[in-house]
């Protein structure tokens, strides 16, 4: 908050409080011409319902004063006046962190105990997997789906096809550090004809039908350009996240058009890191849950 705005808030707030006090004082006196105490005001409703000018009890007035005192007290203790930090230095962030710490103190030991077990063993622990499923539904399902079956562009975690490896350690690393997968655009390097040929060859790698003459030409192009990442046999490279092209699993769409688009424009896949956010223990449990899906 800028200094000017801060002063505006301070002056406006305090002026309001003083205004409230003045208003109470001004209205707590009888006015000229008002009906006498205990006599009717002359207002009548429903034909016979009359209003008396009865005084309010003194404690009613005190409630107003108490409210004002409470307001001042509150503004002294908490940060309400512009940039003033409050007498006890309370902040939302600290309160949030205190709540997180309290929750960690409660639930931390449960996850810590799970993290002592190996990932394959933990995958057999029914209770741990129930907790793992809840974590998955909270943190992972938005992209990978509630059933971990993935979506276009988001890998299926239920099958045995892994971009970066399906070992317990590889899965945990993916969760903790995230992954950055880049397939560079190859449209310029290959040309229109080249794209057609490589696409035909890629289809044939998974055993799908394609023009064999085009595929044969595509094979040569593939071995010079694509093999650097996807290997000469198209089985990919998990160290780079280069996909296996021989297993008939299509992350960005199985149609010929989608495959050609991938070749021409390239693809980027980002798995965000969760180390700071979830911590080692929860990531361990999540890795065990994901591992258990394809290793029942």
């Amino acid at each position, binding site marked *: 908050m800028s200094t000017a705005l801060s002063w505006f808030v301070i002056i406006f707030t305090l002026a309001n409080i003083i205004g409230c006090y003045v208003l109470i004082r001004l*209205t*707590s*006196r*009888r*006015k*000229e*011409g*008002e*009906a*006498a*105490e205990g*006599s009717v005001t002359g207002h009548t409703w429903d034909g016979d319902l009359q209003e008396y000018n009865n*005084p*309010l*009890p*003194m*404690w*009613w*007035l005190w409630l107003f004063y108490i409210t004002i005192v409470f307001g001042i007290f509150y503004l002294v203790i908490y940060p309400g006046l512009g940039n003033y930090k409050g007498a006890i230095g309370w902040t939302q962030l600290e309160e949030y962190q205190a709540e997180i710490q309290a929750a960690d103190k409660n639930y931390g030991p449960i996850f810590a105990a799970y993290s002592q077990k190996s990932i394959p063993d933990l995958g057999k622990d029914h209770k741990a997997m129930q907790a793992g*499923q*809840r974590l998955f*539904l909270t943190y992972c*399902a*938005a*992209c*990978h*789906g*509630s*059933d*971990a*079956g*993935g*979506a*276009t562009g*988001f890998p299926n975690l239920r099958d045995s096809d892994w971009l970066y490896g399906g070992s317990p350690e590889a899965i945990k690393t993916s969760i903790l550090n995230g992954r950055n997968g880049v397939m560079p655009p190859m449209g310029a390097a290959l040309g229109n004809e080249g794209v057609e040929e490589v696409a035909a060859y890629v289809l044939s790698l998974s055993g799908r039908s394609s023009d064999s003459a085009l595929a044969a030409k595509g094979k040569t192009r593939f071995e010079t350009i694509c093999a650097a990442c996807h290997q000469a046999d198209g089985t990919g490279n998990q160290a780079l996240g280069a996909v296996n092209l021989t297993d*008939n*699993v*299509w992350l960005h769409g*199985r149609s010929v058009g989608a495959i050609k688009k991938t070749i021409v424009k390239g693809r980027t896949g980002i798995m965000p890191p969760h180390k700071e956010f979830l911590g080692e223990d929860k990531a361990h449990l999540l890795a065990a849950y994901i591992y258990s899906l394809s290793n029942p």
Partner: protein
Amino acid sequence: MDEKSNSAANAEIYQKHKKVYPREVHGLFASLRNTGVFTLLGLYYLVPWFQWEGHQAVLFDLPARKFYIFSLTFWPQDFIYLAGLLIIAALALFFFTTLAGRLWCGYACPQTVWTEVFLWMERWFEGDRNKQIKLDKSPWAKNKFLRKIGKHTTWLIFSAWTGFTFVGYFTPIKELSILLVNFNLGPWETFWIIFYGFATYGNAGWMREQVCIYMCPYARFQSAMFDKDTLIISYDEKRGDPRGARNRSADPKNLGLGDCIDCTLCVQVCPTGIDIRDGLQYQCIGCAACIDVCDEVMEKMDYDKGLVRYTTEHAIEGVKTRLLRPRVMVYSLLLLVVASTLGYSMVMRMPLELDIIRDRNALYRETNEGLIENIYTLRIINMDRQDHVYRLTAAGIDNLKLLLKNRDIPIKSGEIVTIPIRLQVDPVELNKVGYNVVFDLIATDNDTLHVQETGRFIGPISR
């Protein structure tokens, strides 16, 4: 008048509280109120101590979000019943108020009921009205000091017990009493016991009629339901006026007086400090203390009872009173409809909940086999008292396949289970973009535990 208001101008519009000293009263309506006090407070203080089927008979377990009322367990999903109950309470208030005025205020309201008990305690220590007034006027001496200390101590103990009982509806009262005896109460339990104890002490000991006059919204809007056929407590002005003291043996007619002997007992017994002879006032809580005391006086004077009585404005004006008015019939009809609907739905209540949450990250998914797949998360709550195994099926499209690990889902009593499931269908079966699919969940051991929920299946159009 002008002079009076001028002299009053510029004076404080607020006034110091004048204490009301209600005189003790006996009679039919006082007995009715005492019956109300004993029944209602008896229920309040005793109910939490009853056990039922292994738990406290009435327990509102807020952290677990379960309300136990005898054999029924209510979940947050059952909150509609609370709404129903509140509607019934409101309609009942309308109905009784239209019929007989502020019955609720006079005989059943917690403010009245607790104040009554506090008045009894006050009389134990300070005696009846006259002695109380005298005591308050007397200087602070040992006698006054001891009586006041005694009164407030008794009030405070009773209030603390009230607060303790209140918290006992939310924390099992037996555990709570053990914690209390060991000085081991949690901060929130301590806070609420003190809070409700203090509220009782303040409202029933100090605020009393001021709660009804200045704070209570019901007090004000109940009057809006009155009409000229509503039973109200009224002084019979025609019969009573002109008022005046007279000898018991004298004939009032010869003295030119009405039946009111102007003893002011009706004013002395009034818990809100009004004079019923001024007519109907919003301060009147309909406690009928003035009727009881006036009847006593009339009996002593050998006059007819009922100078102050339950009557209607029409009756006083000499017009015939109609009890069955359209508004009475409308209220009773509404009350009957809402109460029977609520009763029926409580009896038919299904202690099983199935929620279908469709995945939102993709409309549908095409599997490698070319099938169209939709993903859902099911949330199943077993609200029954027993564990059950449930079987899930889905229908709505020809050859629809439901994929989940185990079709038989065991769920413990009170457990909430979350299961991701998949529905698959061959696209040739799809003739439009969306289909309603019905999920059917039934307990394998009990056919009556059966729910159906509709979900949406989305796929491409295939021709």
